[in-house]
């Protein structure tokens, strides 16, 4: 899936994460994470981001996350929203949810 435009999802409120997703034509996946829990959960957050991008088959994207202590399910939700907004597409709710 190709990202058409930049998109934002989430907020800077506590327990949330604000995600800025931008097209990155031919540049692969770039992740910039800012989080108070980066030392402990940075790898897990990045893994979730990459997993969601893989589920959408997004190969090129620049992602900036400002994490305020979001749970994994919140990061997933905000990422899914950002991808749909950036790709200007509706989510296919019928597709298999691979997340466990």
């Amino acid at each position, binding site marked *: 899936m190709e990202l058409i435009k930049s998109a934002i999802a989430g907020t800077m409120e506590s327990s949330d994460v604000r995600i800025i997703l931008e097209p990155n034509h031919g540049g692969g996946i770039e992740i910039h994470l800012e989080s108070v829990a980066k030392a402990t959960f940075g790898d897990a957050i990045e893994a979730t981001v990459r997993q969601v991008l893989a589920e959408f088959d997004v190969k090129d994207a620049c992602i900036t996350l400002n994490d305020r202590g979001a749970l994994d399910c919140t990061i997933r*939700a905000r990422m899914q929203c950002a991808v749909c907004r950036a790709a200007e597409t509706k989510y296919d*709710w*019928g597709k298999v949810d691979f997340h466990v």
Partner: protein
Amino acid sequence: MSKTELMRTSLYVGGTSPARMIQSGFYHADCLVYDLEDAVSTGEKDAARFLVYNAIKYQRPKDKYILIRINGIYSSELDEDLEAAVRAQPDAIRIPKVEYAEEVARIDEKITVIEKEAGLPVGGIQIWCNIESYQGALNARDIAKASPRVVAMALGAEDFTASMAAQRTKSGWEIFYARNLVLMACREAGISAQDAVFSDIKDMDGLQRDLEMTRALGFDGKTCVHPSQIDAVNACFTPTEKEILNAQRVLDALRQAGMNHTGVCTVDGGMVDKPMEIRARTVLAKAKAAGIEVGGIVQ
């Protein structure tokens, strides 16, 4: 799917705030209503759908009855709301502004289609109907019986009052008739009757007065718009020790009369009749549902 049979309190939780959704699981509300409708602005409907779906699917609060309030039946968000809501597998979907039984039947069909597509058990998701207009109130009997999925009906006082061109007051006389219509329709259908929200979250005395009406009329539960209302509403629908003891005495007297073949009996000088027996059984059923252990026969 964990759930409780108690439906004393249902707390609305905006579908856009992860913090509020997390916190809501720690309050004493029996039911949580993750809202995709009024609490979500037009530009954030998609974000709320994703958040509610993921929260229920992967971070579901234990021992809570979980509902999702979807957008209106004629909203452009409806189909996507249902796709997300059904696949999240809440206990129930709460439909706002229901006016006709056919609308509920249509939602039922849509849910069934999605359940089949997703390989979920058909009929597993229940429906709560919000009655929020004079048309809905007048059709409440049909709406309550529109689908076997319908397990509760609730009055939405603010929109109902607007539809009547009436003034919304704290005394609530402008919704008195509608409350009774909804209640009687629920009783006829054998479903839970949920009372209207008390909107002024700072007026606890006003809430208490409103609850006296709620309880006197016979509702089974009430919707809360703020966590501060939960304990008062739970207390309203939980029988007191005195009420439980009285109920036990009534049933004990009836049991004794049956054993003695006397036919009639009295408690404190008053004759025990059928309505008293029904009320006593209702009190004990509510106590049991609230987790109160009721002892044996009172001597």
